[in-house]
């Protein structure tokens, strides 16, 4: 498990919303720097260019990378204006995510907590858009196979970044686990499991859901007593399955 090298800047029209999202994401990513900025100086709704600029500069201090997430349209415009205004060498290590505000922040925070670099954290945020589907296949991964919709096992949407290190080719492994803790795969265990799965090269799934995605795991709605199927494909598939099965059966400290 690495130490976080990416900070998140959460930009909302609403100070309360920005702070709330930071609180939510922070629950699952206690070591990640989360900078919440929202509202205008007089306490109203809107985005403040100067405050966003300060937050971005603070996030990118000492060479740290940062991912900026925004809520609605004009927050995007303000964030883009800020990225044009900062020094080039700061702009080089700051990205603006195109992702839903809450879900993207949560996914990105978990990835950052696991030591993910800017590419990984950015990819995690973008992936949140696909996990938040309309129930056609992006969310209903368990009915459609390993990657939620495509019979050939490729990602359901183009948003999931292609990572050549995590190839779907190679050995596969499979195991089952019965969830021990009463609430099963709710948010905190899902986050822990996602961190575990992220440590492996192989693609790991739990009942077809991408085990690296907190949202996909939570969407399974798997409660205590449920038996789940853990699959992996890749060079370390067997080790990955064993680790995930063990964690599920241990009960996340709640059993």
């Amino acid at each position, binding site marked *: 498990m690495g130490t976080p090298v990416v900070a998140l800047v959460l930009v909302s029209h609403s100070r309360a919303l920005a702070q709330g999202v930071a609180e939510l994401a922070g629950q699952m990513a206690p070591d990640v720097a989360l900078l919440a900025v929202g509202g205008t100086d007089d306490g109203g709704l*809107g985005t403040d260019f100067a405050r966003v600029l300060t937050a971005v500069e603070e996030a990118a201090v000492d060479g740290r990378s940062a991912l900026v997430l925004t809520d609605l349209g004009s927050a995007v415009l303000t964030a883009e204006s800020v990225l044009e205004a900062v020094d080039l060498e700061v702009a080089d290590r700051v990205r603006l995510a195109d992702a839903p505000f809450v879900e993207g922040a949560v996914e990105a925070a978990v990835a950052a907590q696991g030591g993910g670099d800017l590419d990984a954290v950015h990819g995690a945020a973008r992936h949140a858009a696909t996990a938040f589907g309309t129930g056609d296949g992006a969310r209903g991964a368990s009915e459609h196979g390993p990657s939620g919709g495509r019979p050939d096992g490729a990602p359901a949407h183009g948003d999931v970044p292609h990572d050549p290190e995590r190839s779907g080719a190679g050995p596969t492994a499979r195991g089952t686990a019965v969830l021990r803790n009463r609430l099963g795969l709710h948010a905190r265990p899902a986050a822990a499991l996602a961190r575990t799965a992220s440590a492996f090269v192989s693609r790991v799934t739990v009942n077809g859901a991408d085990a690296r995605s907190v949202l996909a795991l939570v969407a399974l709605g798997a409660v205590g007593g449920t038996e789940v199927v853990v699959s992996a494909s890749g060079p370390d598939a067997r080790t990955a399955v064993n680790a995930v099965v063990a964690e599920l059966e241990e009960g996340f400290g709640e059993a």
Partner: protein
Amino acid sequence: MTLDVGWALRWVRMSAAVVTEHRSELIELDRQIGDGDHGENMHRGFTATVAKLDALEAEPAHVGDVLKLVATTLMSTVGGAAGPLYGTAYLRAAKVTGLATLDPHAVVAMLEAALEGIVARGKATTGEKTMVDAWSPAVAAAVEAAGAGADPVAVLEAAARAAASGAEATIPLVATKGRASYLGERSAGHADPGATSTALLLRAAVDAASA
């Protein structure tokens, strides 16, 4: 009347006056199809800009210096989409008006740069019910007028008139950009607030030349 720094300063002051005068109208338009803050935002932004002008120790050397001051002030005081959009517009316009006076082609360049900035920032095209629907015809009219040999003020006048028509033409449009786009069909039947304020600002530019 020469479009010099004195004109630019008057333009800013008259812009502040006109957006304040039309504050309620802009609020109402934005309330119908947006989040209701456009009038307040523009009033706050331009009032702050005038305060900055009042605090200047010396008159700026170039028209662009005035426009840059407008840009940075709007960017930091206008909290909605108008801040970044107008901010970028005036900033780009400032870059091509580092001149003591504007000839017809400089007026065209200024308006073109503003439109480019808005499109680059907001990524809208014409027909989406945004301020682009006022700026785009304004630029086209300016290009035509300058090409026909009009003097700088006449080029501005052509632009202002086209912007006003453009703003009115947004009334039946369905928004596909910005907060109004969330309303879909319900956004039709009201003028776009950003296009309306654009028309007011360009009319103020003309008025400043005859004051």
